[in-house]
């Protein structure tokens, strides 16, 4: 993994790190990649991936509303808000 790849990864994850920390981070990540790369030798081409271990299907809910209004609770519990909205620094599009 090179610095540019790490920079991209950090951005995708919205995590920051100083340039001088990059080598250490890359080393840590590469150690883990070494571990997980061991499964590359396995030929599993005839197997379907398994997402849900019990392979459940068809779970749905009836289209009926619960009529809850927790506006005040949610806004009060937030890091920054006014009477009606969550507040964040200005977003420039």
């Amino acid at each position, binding site marked *: 993994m090179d610095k540019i790849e790490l920079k991209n*990864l950090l951005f995708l994850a919205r995590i920051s790190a100083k340039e001088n920390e990059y080598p250490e981070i890359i080393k840590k990540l590469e150690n*883990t990649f070494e571990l997980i790369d061991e499964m590359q030798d396995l030929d599993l081409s005839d197997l379907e991936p398994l997402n849900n271990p019990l392979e459940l299907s068809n779970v749905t809910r009836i289209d009926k509303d619960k009529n809850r209004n927790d506006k005040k609770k949610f806004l009060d519990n937030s890091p920054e808000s006014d009477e009606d909205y969550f507040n964040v620094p*200005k977003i420039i599009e």
Partner: protein
Amino acid sequence: MNFKQQRDNFRAKKISAVEAVEESLRKIKDDQLNIFINHFEQEALSNARHIDNNFDDFIAKPLSGVPIAHKDIFCTEGLPTTCGSKMLENFIPPYDSTVVKNCLDAGSIMVAKTNMDEFAMGSSNETSYFGAVSNPWNHDLVPGGSSGGAAACVSANLTTISTGTDTGGSIRQPAALCGITGLKPTYGLVSRWGMIAFCSSMDQAGPFSRDAFGCAALLDAMASYDEKDSTSTKRQDTNFEESLSKNFGSLKVGVIKNIQELDISEDVINAYETSKTVLSGLGHKLVEVDFSELSSGICSYYVIAPAECSSNLSRFDGVKYGYRSKGEKDIANLYMNTRSDGFGDEVKKRILIGTHVLSAGFYDAYYLQAQKVRRMIKLKFENFFKDVDLIFMPTTLDQAFEKNRKSDDPNRMYKEDLLTIPANLAGLPAISFPNGFKNNLPIAGQLIGKYFAEDLLLNTTNKIQEVTDWHKMTP
């Protein structure tokens, strides 16, 4: 004192709920092992009073009058839920998790929330923002993780029951290192509603207690079908406590062929061999099982778990709740600084790994491949279970280790999940129970069962605990 005694005392009116809670809180306030993140004196006493005042309503409930500690990963309405992280240090959920609600309805009284590895990522309870937890048997050693606090709590007799979660071994491994019994149920048996997600397709909540009985009663309380959780499964009306006295007869138990080839310590192997004798003595038939191909489970786990966690933790952005980095002037910095400050190193590392393995160009080689390994492991177990009813193996490779352990192998801690991970990947139930003692430290064995065989696991463990004393040892 174990859970059954404590509950019997309440039911026989020998000790009130309030007295039990006061006793527990006394010990909690004296705790030197950093087991707890928060405790709730007022609420617990008020709750206990309510139970005492409505004795008749609660006498028959599975957890009647018994204090309980919940891993701080379960949302508790109106009370802090930190998940061991700075990100949620002051987070007060506006709702209860199903597990907490179920335990409350079952008559237990929550006295505290236990310390844990941050966002359930770790095997030693050293990554918590609130500091490491000490093993009750030896304070220089780790209790295991991520449910280290919950295991230590029961081990040190601060409560007789506690709840934990197990994604790669986080109930079974701390149970093993602390000398208590811990069970990871079949995936879907216990609702994940309100349980802060780490790896959604493997996370399962489960019980800790000294013995199978306590675990059975707690599981009876915890497990329920929940329509708010799409991955929840129906319970099939099993009463685990009642199942303890059933007679399942002689079972075929798979044991590990060539255990010497795995990196397991002498002491653990010896305890394992002793247990095999106990199992035979109980009338079970031992059948050798080849475990070698299950070792690729570690690779699969350390792709899938980081992948899902990288996505699950994206919601922590400082916008709606939790920690927010102060004084940020633009949104980009808000995200970056909130997440960089709010998360610890292990969490950040796993998020980066997860982000990488899901990236374009790497998805097939990593994520897809890992899911195929998972399929392979599930099929292997299906095969095993054609010939055996249960599989018996050690829980950990070694006993409790020192805090801040240095190792030449940077992946050592990950590799130590070798024996617990396969059950998580396949979603199978598994129980860890004490089966030995050496170097003044406990050793444990693990039974893995077919889907929804918790009754068989608990029953078999119970039978073992009727003829052994390991589970009775206290630090």
